[in-house]
């Protein structure tokens, strides 16, 4: 039985085929993150984070359980959460109102990064639908522009996409965004910005993160970036 297993059946959290040592290694990576001590103090298990959590209304998801599992150093449960729960968080950080000053959403950010960096199946699965978005952000540094959200092209984004795209002009007058990107301007980024951006992706390892979850996308991005840097005469 695993040393930290608190529960009746050692595999109560599932993933019995994954060695305990591997689960412990991943949790150690989470705990080693510089932000971790500021994100987790102690948990009252009061549930205020669940009460304010929009995801908790729609999924079997509880930021409390995430904070609790981390506080209890429950290696098995944390692994289960890295494979399941953390992808149900919308990263809105409503949970920051924790009376103890915890940041369950932040713990999830770290857990996600560890999951992505280590190519966990859940990370691959969760990011599958976002290949285009990742491609857009990493290759141009700008988000998908709202008028790209054509309902036919984004059926997985739900019925609101149609409403937004039909009435985009009205929406923008009601809630003016900082940039008024459209498909006409959304791809138009200064070469100097791209060079800086690509260097950042390379140097910080952000590009490497993609490799574990979407190898094809990683190849395309790497090629685009290397080509551009070569064109601009930038050495890495």
């Amino acid at each position, binding site marked *: 039985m695993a040393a930290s297993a608190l*529960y*009746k059946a050692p595999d*109560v959290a599932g993933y019995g085929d994954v060695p305990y040592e591997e689960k412990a290694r991943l949790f150690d990576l989470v705990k080693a993150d510089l932000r971790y001590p500021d994100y987790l*103090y102690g948990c009252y298990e009061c549930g205020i984070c669940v009460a304010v959590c929009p995801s908790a209304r729609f999924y079997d998801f509880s930021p409390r359980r995430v904070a*609790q599992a981390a506080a*209890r150093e429950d290696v098995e449960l944390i692994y289960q959460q890295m494979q399941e729960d953390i992808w149900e968080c919308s990263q809105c950080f409503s949970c920051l109102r924790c009376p103890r000053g915890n940041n369950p959403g932040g713990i999830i950010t770290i857990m996600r990064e560890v999951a992505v960096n280590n190519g966990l199946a859940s990370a691959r699965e969760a990011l599958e639908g976002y290949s285009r978005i990742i491609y857009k952000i990493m290759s141009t540094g700008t988000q998908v522009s709202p008028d790209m959200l054509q309902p036919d092209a984004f059926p997985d984004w739900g019925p609101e996409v149609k409403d937004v795209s039909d009435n985009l002009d009205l929406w923008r007058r009601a809630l003016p965004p900082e940039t008024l990107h459209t498909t006409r301007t959304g791809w138009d980024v200064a070469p100097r910005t791209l060079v800086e951006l690509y260097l950042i992706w390379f140097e910080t390892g952000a590009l490497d993160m993609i490799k574990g979850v979407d190898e094809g996308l990683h190849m395309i991005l790497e090629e685009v970036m290397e080509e551009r840097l070569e064109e601009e005469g930038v050495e890495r």
Partner: protein
Amino acid sequence: MQQGGEMQQGAASPGERVVVIGGGPAGLEAAWGVARLGCPVTLVEWAAFLGGTPVAENYAALTPNFEDAEAAMQRMIDRVSPHPLVDIRLRSQVTAFDEREGGGFTVTLSSAGDGSGTSTLDAGAVVVATGFQHFDPGRETQMYGYYEYPDVVALQDLEAMLKDHNVVRPSNGEPPERICFVQCVGSRDRQIGNEYCSKVCCGVASKEAIEVRQQLPGCKVFIFYIDMRMYGYWESQIYWPAQEQYHVQYIKGIITEVLPKDGKLLVRGEDTTMGRPMEVPMDMVVLSVGMEPSLGTRLTAQTLGLRQNKYGFIDAAYPPLDTVSTSRPGVFACGAALGPSDLEDSISSAGAAAMRAVVHVRDRSSVTAAG
């Protein structure tokens, strides 16, 4: 001016002394307070030493500030012992209590220590500070096996180990790798008849948990609780540091049973916030026993004819704004004789009782003088 001489004049009529029963923290504070207000005081203590339960039960450090318990009690003893208005009677108990004609009391003492046998004292007022005793875990209605398994201990047993810096499993002398505390043993339990919260056990268990982590950094410490009750500053003084600095694990759910298994103790309960049953192996189980009225409190209440509540503690007659008057005018109570109480409240009520006792004596003196 040392002892407030002019105040003393008002209480100068002979015999107008205050008798304080009980030489623990509350009694020591009350006796010192009475003396400093200029009244003669006799401090009656059943045991052969002063200091009360913190000394008798080998407390390691006081809650919440971790001061060495014996040293802290010695400081109180050293303050009161040399005072010229203080008369200390060890190994003594009050065996009879009579109202005097014209007011005041005759207190009969039976002393075992100095061979003086029985003696009587005239008292203008009495302060009862006879305290509590730890709940006997043999009376619990779950199955914790305090008298069955050597590695099941109570809060005060662990205190003694902590005091000696020798926290080991009684069964084999090895330092434990996993310890858990079980809260509310003998408290908040209709089955047992103690429906009250004993107030201090959450803080004391958390304090001991911190001490265990300090002395045995490799030992995992768990606290199983119904709800943690560390009101006021205890929150940030004990609870948060226990969790955040010492990584004590608080798990909401009360242990229903302790079972021996493979040389360890298996504790069984529900992890309520995780919503699942648990069975966890432990090397030691510490029962957070609550407070019950001490034998001294029960006997003194009977001898002095004081109304007790259904649990045997002495009733404060006029709560909430008068916390120390008993059902008998001229007799005041303080500390854990009145019910579960932490040290801070015990010392506060002892001060209030001392003040009320001296006022009672002075009021009587002035009436007598006028009459």
